[in-house]
């Protein structure tokens, strides 16, 4: 079966599933509003907080100016990936609770194809997120940015493929967790707590082997698009994508999907 056909199979399961539309709708709605409304938010702050507008001239904060906007929006959007990850968890754990995974295999899907259909949906969701945020960046940038200098204005566009990888790697993590745990509630709790768990481990080894920190899975995913806003407090930030971060995140994404594959391959379903 072609990859497109496998994707179609998974989308067929989702297309008539109300929960899918609700979670996806909320996610993409949040993505648009959260990223597009930064300026309005600052204005609102200036209106409501006494003295805010006097101390800081909000129009001097180039949130939506080219080229700052690329990294700003890519980073902010990264915060919302948990929303779509929950959808991925629901989608895969449903297959276990309804036992439809079993029937899919009986009906003639191979285990690899089943996993592939889920991974392809993850690719689609990541890609759609990226395209959407990119379009918002272009539109809001044209609205708020005083000028666009070529090629300087494009500095940081490389964060979009990196953001796409960020979402995909995280969705791969969610998919793997869902297949290992097989229950939606527990998986979502684990997913939400995974940052905390990793943080505790990182804190404990930071003194001894700080050079290892960047290899942690969630850390490496966050590292793809580093926090940009420190630059408005005149701090040095990394405003480009490093190959190292891409390779580490890519390795983790591959591993997550490989673990999911191993689990599926050797278990009775």
């Amino acid at each position: 079966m072609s990859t497109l056909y496998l994707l179609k199979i998974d989308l067929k399961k989702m297309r008539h599933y109300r929960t899918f539309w609700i979670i996806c709708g909320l996610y993409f709605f949040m993505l648009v509003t959260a990223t597009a409304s930064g300026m309005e938010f600052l204005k609102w702050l200036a209106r409501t907080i006494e003295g805010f507008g006097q101390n800081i001239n909000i129009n001097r904060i180039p949130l939506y100016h080219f080229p700052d906007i690329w990294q700003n929006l890519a980073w902010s959007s990264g915060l919302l990936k948990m929303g779509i990850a929950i959808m991925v968890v629901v989608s895969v754990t449903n297959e276990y609770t309804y036992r439809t995974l079993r029937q899919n295999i009986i009906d003639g899907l191979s285990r690899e194809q089943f996993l592939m259909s889920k991974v392809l949906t993850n690719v689609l969701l990541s890609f759609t997120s990226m395209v959407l945020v990119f379009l918002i960046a272009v539109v809001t940038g044209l609205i708020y940015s005083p000028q666009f200098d070529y090629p300087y204005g494009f500095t940081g566009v490389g964060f979009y493929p990196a953001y796409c990888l960020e979402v995909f790697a995280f969705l791969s993590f969610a998919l793997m967790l869902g297949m290992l745990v097989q229950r939606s509630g527990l998986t979502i709790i684990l997913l939400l707590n995974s940052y905390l768990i990793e943080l505790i481990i990182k804190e404990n080894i930071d003194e001894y082997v700080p050079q290892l920190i960047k290899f942690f899975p969630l850390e490496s995913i966050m590292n793809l698009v580093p926090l940009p806003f420190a630059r408005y407090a005149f701090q040095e930030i990394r405003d480009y994508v490093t190959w190292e971060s891409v390779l580490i995140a890519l390795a983790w994404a591959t591993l997550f999907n490989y673990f999911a594959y191993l689990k599926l391959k050797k278990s009775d379903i």
Partner: protein
Amino acid sequence: MNVETVLSIQGLTKHFGKLCAVNQLNLEVKRGQVFGMLGPNGSGKTTTLGMLMGVTNPTSGSFTWFGQTPTHLMRQKIGAVLEHPIFYPYLTGQQNLELNAMIKGATAQQIDRVLDVVELLPRRHDKYRTYSLGMKQRLAIASALLNDPIVLILDEPTNGLDPMGIAEIRELIKKIAADGKTIILASHLLDEVQKVCTHFAVLKRGNLMHVGPVDDVGKGEETVEVAAYHDDVADVLRKFPGTAGIKRENQHYLVTLHDGFHSAEINRYLFEHGIVAAHLQTKKKSLEKQFLEILAENSEPIH
């Protein structure tokens, strides 16, 4: 390998931890057979079928479909319902079948036909969640019939069906079998199995206890049910040279005959002794009886 062999199982074994669910199973199913899989609860029927359909990984042993190592593509041509109907509850019957048709590589046109066969057309656009148990079973059978399967595997397909439904499924199985399709049927309804199956196998705690044609059931010694309103009837029956054993059951006697003796001879013998039988019926040994004998404690598994 004979081309007529649809399924060949060699030494198939499945352990769940310490428990041996299927032990060294060897079995052959030929084209056109309606093959009954019998056995008490937990004897390993579903586990065996699960291995054949690629959802349960065998501990050891192997099997071939159509003489070839099994692949997922073969499963597209095998319609199977294992234990319970499984569908997406939030999809309608129609949408569930559309999805399964995609997986099996069947055309969407077949959906109307299979829904018609199981008489579910009027409810096709209702959510699966809202179906009654019998309707779920019917949908499962409809789904198994998609893509014109060469082999049909049914694990207790009449579970939860009304008597009419059971009779309909029996007719359906017969009809499908008449098309030359091979059917493997796991069931506890021995009556049904005797009516539709050509061959049967009996499992007990994972061991194969018996395999053979259904027609062989009831061959050999005959049992005759006799009732007569006469005080000496028991004595006379006991003296009859063909009697191997006699047992009283409710209002009548069950006489087991030696090979070569039949009910007509009993009738004549009784008459000669001045007794008129009020009731005389040859009992073909039922599959149920044979089944219970096979499962009796002292019997040995065959390997």
